[in-house]
């Protein structure tokens, strides 16, 4: 099993990388730091051993977040990079079977994840030493959950990677899938609730895909998940994750076939408008703005870099943007109509939560993948050298690039406004709150764009920039919400409130009195904190861009 050449190459290659070393140090420091932060300092004897659990619980969630952020980048870029470099063809042309290739890649990444998890063993041992935590009931199940998460996310990454055309697309899609599996899967049960029959069964198994309930189960906080309507636990997580992993593995191995990978490069085709050859009505309806119609010259009043950014993105072309906006608007209106006409027990507050979370999820999916490629993709493709050789000023390059992301994000945000408009109509008293939500979301957009753009200016490859941006933004937006999920035990209300101030989405949720956020008063401090972070990052980005356009 360990004689697999791919496993050895991948594992040794990654162990030699300074990034792995940095990740190991980060995991060790964070896990050790968490234990130190919660370590009891008074001389009182804890007879029921609650102290150890107060240390163990945040450690478990921090490690789960680390697995979510650190595991996906390697498999997500693995197969797509091999295919683009032509080395996948060499591998498939060798006696190595697709199963061996897949196994090598999967096990190398899982081994790496286990090495990362092992960096937290001293912290776990400290919890064990405190008493009240047992190896069989807590430590080993936690390691098993983390192991299953690593296997599942690696399988997801490899599956997405094989189907993607570029490493940054693959990273974006993998993080989207991981986010959906880990967080959004609990959505139907938590937000809709009151389900019965088959719908309840499906919702429970969807929830089982998320490690949250398993982690709560291990860290003896079932009460918190039960209050959210989650009835699944450790065993269901193991079953659901194993099924997903096995399914994805079978599909990926089957698709690792030279014949299936033999796809022609898109050569580009322009739909002729000549008489007798006009596009069909179906095509006109499908593409309101036909992507295969020859584009006009860039007009003088538009920044050419901004236009270029839109045109070079697969999902940046106008027909895709229109589809995205239309989808957002439909979902937003549907949710609000449900609130207005549906069950009496559903209030506007309960609907506002999913709406804000939907916007947050979209922002976190779309924003980093666009922002992180602004400079890094240009450097990677060699386009930056060409841009530098033109008389186009640095400030216009940067503004064009930033505006291309800002417009996209604003369009997504604007598309959900009809939902808020309906909400204000149902409850006119909510107009002020809706205004505050929109400000919070605008601050969140500014943070996403500025942070990912800033990260992009320091990276030479899109894969690294995208992974780093996702890591930073997930820590800020999802990490703080995970801490909120563990509010009360072990995190105190003051700590949670202070932490939520760096997350403008949490401010939006508290403004809408979303269940669980009613007690916080996050705005306007959250706007100032978020705005400050965004401005700081923009300054760094501007200086970096200016320096990068200067002669060496």
């Amino acid at each position, binding site marked *: 099993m360990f004689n697999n050449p791919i496993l050895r190459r991948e594992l040794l290659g990654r162990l030699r990388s300074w990034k792995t070393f940095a990740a190991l140090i980060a995991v060790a420091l964070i896990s050790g730091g968490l234990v130190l932060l919660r370590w009891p300092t008074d001389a009182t004897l804890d007879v029921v051993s609650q102290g150890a659990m107060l240390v163990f619980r945040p450690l478990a969630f921090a490690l789960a977040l680390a697995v979510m952020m650190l595991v996906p980048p390697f498999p997500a870029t693995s197969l797509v990079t091999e295919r683009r470099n032509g080395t996948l063809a060499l591998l498939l042309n060798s006696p190595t079977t697709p199963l061996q290739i897949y196994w090598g890649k999967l096990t190398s990444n899982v081994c790496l994840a286990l090495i990362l998890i092992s960096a937290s063993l001293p912290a776990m041992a400290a919890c064990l030493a405190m008493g009240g935590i047992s190896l069989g009931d807590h430590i080993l199940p936690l390691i098993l959950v983390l192991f299953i998460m690593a296997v599942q996310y690696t399988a997801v990454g490899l599956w997405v990677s094989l189907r993607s055309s570029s490493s940054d697309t693959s990273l974006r899609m993998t993080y989207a899938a991981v986010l959906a599996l880990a967080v959004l899967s609990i959505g139907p049960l938590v937000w809709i609730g009151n389900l019965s029959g088959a719908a309840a069964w499906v919702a429970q198994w969807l929830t089982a895909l998320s490690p949250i309930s398993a982690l709560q189960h291990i860290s003896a906080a079932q009460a918190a998940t039960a209050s959210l309507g989650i009835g699944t636990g450790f065993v269901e997580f193991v079953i659901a994750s194993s099924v997903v992993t096995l399914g994805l593995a079978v599909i990926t191995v089957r698709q690792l076939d030279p014949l299936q990978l033999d796809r022609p*490069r898109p*050569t580009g085709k322009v739909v002729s408008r000549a008489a007798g050859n006009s596009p069909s009505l179906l095509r006109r309806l499908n593409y309101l703005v036909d992507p295969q119609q020859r584009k006009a010259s860039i007009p003088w009043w538009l920044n050419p870099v901004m236009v270029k950014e839109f045109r070079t993105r697969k999902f940046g072309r106008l027909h895709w943007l229109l589809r995205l906006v239309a989808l957002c608007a439909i979902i937003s209106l549907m949710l609000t109509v449900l609130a207005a006409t549906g069950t009496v027990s559903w209030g506007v507050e309960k609907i506002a939560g999913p709406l804000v979370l939907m916007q947050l999820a979209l922002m976190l999916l779309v924003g980093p993948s666009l922002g992180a490629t602004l400079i890094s993709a240009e450097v990677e*493709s060699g*386009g930056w050298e060409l841009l530098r*050789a*033109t008389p*186009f000023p640095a400030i216009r390059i940067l503004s064009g690039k930033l505006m291309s992301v800002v417009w996209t994000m604003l369009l997504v945000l604007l598309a959900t406004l009809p939902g808020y408009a309906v909400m204000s109509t149902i409850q006119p008293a909510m107009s002020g709150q809706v205004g505050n939500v929109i400000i919070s979301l605008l601050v969140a957009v500014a943070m996403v764009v500025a942070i990912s753009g800033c990260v992009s200016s320091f990276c030479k490859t899109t894969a690294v920039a995208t992974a780093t941006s996702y890591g930073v933004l997930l820590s800020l937006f999802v990490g703080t919400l995970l801490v909120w999920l563990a509010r009360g035990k072990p995190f105190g209300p003051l700590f949670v409130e202070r932490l939520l101030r760096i997350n403008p989405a949490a401010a939006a949720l508290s403004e809408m009195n979303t269940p669980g956020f009613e007690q916080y008063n996050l705005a306007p401090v959250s706007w100032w904190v978020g705005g400050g972070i965004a401005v700081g990052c923009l300054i760094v980005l501007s200086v970096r861009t200016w320096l990068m356009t200067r002669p060496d």
Partner: protein
Amino acid sequence: MNTDEPVLKTENLTKRYGQFCALDDLSIHVGRGQILGFIGPNGAGKTTTIKILVGLSRPTSGNAWIAGVNCSKQASQIKHLVGYMPDRFGSYDNMRVHEYLDFFGAVFGISAKARRKRIAEVMETTNTTYMQDKFVESLSHGMQQRVGIARTLLHDPQVLILDEPANGLDPRARIEMRELLLRLASEGKTLIVTSHILPELARICDTVAIITGGKLQAFGKLDAVMRDLCPTRSYEVQLVRDDQLDSASSLLQAGLKDAVVTISRPERTLRFPTADSEAELAGALQQLIQGGIEVAQFREVAGDLEDAFLSVAARDK
């Protein structure tokens, strides 16, 4: 066209990165409509020189001018005067050739109307019109090189700097590239071309600069550099009968100073390098004929740029 008027000039150009000297005291000049072949091994300082010329790098000392404009002090003006094609194409995903050229035209500040006309012209010049609707990343390497040249021509620069334009091209694409470069030079463009394919470069350039370890080893007209670097010429004598090879070899060694004659029996040929004059060579031929040797051919074997480069490399070692 006055080819003596220097369009590009460098004076004592030096670039240091800490203790490492990437470029040492480079002084060259190129006239209008000329093609300069810039030759050197990897890491010789070619790209450093090019980057200084296009305003992407500042020299530690010395100066460079293009059309009288200082490359380091007036970098923004230089960018209008130079068309630069780096060794990497610099493609963008999901972008068609026409859109690609339109973008770079807009970045160079060409108005939309003028851009449309100019794009049509450069595509015509580079024979890329038929690929205008193709995605840039789907083009073959040869096609991308032609689109790259079209891009450098968009703002009608006086000087074109092309880093390895023939690299990775098939023979047909190489011939087309050569014809294109010669056509551009005939239209008055000054070209600086780096290449590792020296026979290819020898076919197009008027002037060569050979650089190793950051130092200029040879510079001047191609013929002059060749004479300078390869003072001994190689000659070949082909006989009608192979039984006369040994006696012919003895006659040549007796008639020429320090001639080392190599015999190739299957080809019935004698080869020797010599620095002797034309008159002395004529005398040697006369001796062969008078000695009853039946000579089929007596000719100079043309030396090439590769010999010149190898001679510089050997001297450098």
